[in-house]
């Protein structure tokens, strides 16, 4: 297997680094000895097949799951996160793959959930204004922020979840397939957003199955396979390399398909 490890974008200490992190669910080892570093102002793309452990890794960093073993360092200090609020306090914001929104609350309430202004007398007007500002930055198409989330489309929900992660001025943003349900314009806005966030000096972890999006914004591409590190690539790595690392073989479904199509075209040309 050929994998190159390009120099990290910044020579400074990483904001977040993982050392030999493992996570078992009973007999299933979803993550085994994962090492990962994220620097300030860096976008790390996390790619891998379905079930590779990407979401599990993100959840471990968000405090949702506690790692079975291994250590997590935040700004050089070892940290243990006993719950999602610990991660939020550190400045780790997450957009989960399943979004984790409360369908029975309206958009404003969801964006501010857990972070309401004025706990004893909610400041609805200020929250609504802030919600609109965040949503407009994302070019959201949301009819009314006073509608419950249940009435929104999948992409609108995803925008709400992304808006929520921006609320707290985090140090690191983790986006688990943020553009999976988005339209063309909204995807572009999210990619712009990722770049803006990077310019502000934040670290970004982005999970995506869309190699085009990944190449467009990532500084490094980290491949997971069957819960293990399987190489770090620069965004200009060739498609075969990436696919090989993701699927774990040079002879895989993707290469067979490309080969078949090439063969087909060649034979088509011959017959004319």
């Amino acid at each position: 297997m050929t994998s190159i490890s390009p120099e990290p974008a910044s020579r400074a200490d990483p904001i977040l680094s993982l050392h030999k992190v493992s996570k078992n669910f009973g007999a299933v080892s979803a993550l085994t000895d994962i090492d990962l570093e994220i620097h300030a102002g860096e976008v790390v793309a996390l790619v891998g097949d379905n079930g590779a452990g990407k979401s599990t890794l993100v959840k471990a960093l968000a405090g949702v799951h506690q790692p079975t073993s291994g250590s997590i360092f935040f700004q050089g200090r070892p940290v243990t996160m006993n719950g999602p609020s610990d991660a939020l306090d550190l400045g780790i914001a997450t957009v989960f793959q399943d979004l984790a929104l409360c369908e029975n609350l309206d958009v404003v309430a969801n964006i501010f959930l857990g972070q309401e202004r004025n706990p004893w007398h909610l400041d609805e007007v200020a929250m609504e204004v802030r919600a609109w500002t965040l949503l407009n930055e994302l070019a959201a198409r949301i009819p009314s922020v006073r509608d419950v989330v249940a009435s929104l489309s999948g992409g609108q929900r995803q925008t709400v979840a992304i808006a929520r992660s921006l609320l707290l001025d985090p140090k690191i943003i983790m986006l688990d397939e943020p553009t999976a349900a988005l339209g063309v314009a909204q995807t572009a806005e999210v990619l712009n957003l990722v770049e803006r966030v990077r310019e502000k000096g934040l670290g970004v972890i982005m999970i995506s199955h869309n190699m085009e999006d990944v190449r467009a914004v990532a500084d490094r591409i980290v491949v997971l396979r069957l819960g293990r590190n399987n190489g770090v690539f620069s965004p200009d790595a060739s498609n075969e390399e990436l696919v090989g690392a993701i699927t774990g073989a040079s002879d895989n479904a993707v290469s067979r398909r490309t080969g078949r199509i090439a063969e087909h075209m060649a034979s088509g040309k011959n017959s004319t």
Partner: protein
Amino acid sequence: MTREPNTEAAAAPATLLDRGDSRVAHANSVGGAISAFFDRVRAGDLGSLPVIVGLVIIWTVFAGLNPVFLSPNNLVNLLFDCSTVGVIALGIVCVLMLGEIDLSVGSMSGVGSALIGVLWVNQGVPLILAITGALTLGAVIGSVYALLRTRLGMPSFVSTLAGLLALLGLQLYLLGSTGSINLPYGSGFVDFGQLLIMPAWVSYTLPLLPGLAILSKGLRTRAQRRSVNLSAGSIGALVFKVVVATVVLEAIVAYLNQGRGVPWMFGLFVLLVVVMNYALTRTKWGRSMTAVGGNAEAARRAGINVRRIYLSAFVLCSIFATLGGVLSSARLASASQQAGTGDVNLNAIAAAVIGGTSLFGGRGSAWSALLGIIVIQSIANGLTLLNLSSSLRYMITGGVLAIAVIVDSLARQSRVSHGRA
């Protein structure tokens, strides 16, 4: 090809922050607000509509069968009876908001009333301390349920079912062989439960407050929203709401004052409802309650301490149940083995559900305790006036509860299909 200008967009104030989407119909007038209301109802967002319709039907039927039913003094009696179980129902609203249940509120209220008898009458402890002691015990029991739920994952209907029996045993133990302790007639406590009525001027002044509150809050919100470029509701609709609320409340008070007047105990109940309504809708705690009831995992990931929310709900429920028991001992002037048994449990739960709090969690309001208990007590009171036995009363109340739950689940299905959660 020429295009008609988009009239809707031209008519709307184009720069408002929340009116950017031309696909949404906004209700700008009183008429628009009314048709928006009907749309909501059709989508299954019923609010308190079923209970008000039900109340009108029930009152019409009973008034037809026995004119005494609607007499001012009978309604005053009804309000006295509402207050005790109503307070218990208020606690039930808290646990139902989380999709949990407390089946032991009846026994809990029985223990509360027994403690008043034992501590105050038998032991001579000052009344205020006796009440505090009872409420504290309630808080302890509630936290036990919460711990069983959050630490051991015990479904609340099982733990509270066990609690129902255990607390009933505690009540019998406290009351001992005599089985019943009479509270002194003529004491302020018993008078509060049976006689004390607001003076006329108080009873006419208090109903002005909701109108004033709605008006001042409405005007302030309008000004605030204007200043930050958000749409503000029409002033006509606001004034309409204020006038209707004030006129209806004053009319009710005037009618009750034809008889004995408005009981202080009912005043206390309404005060508790208002406070709980504020807490559930305007505080961070209330928002967290709704969130946990809707999607506990999402609430946890948002950093909400879900365990603490469960704790607060179960503790509040048990405290309200105990308080209801204390009030009912004042109402009956006794602490007996019968207190809190029979239909108290079911009535409190039924009241919350009939009032519109969903059994499935995440939806409910403090007002549902008030509306629901009036329905339940109207049925009980009306059937008693008709000299029907309690056997029939139970069957009919059971039927009404079944109807309420059916309405709840049908409305829920409709909400799901109309995307209103």
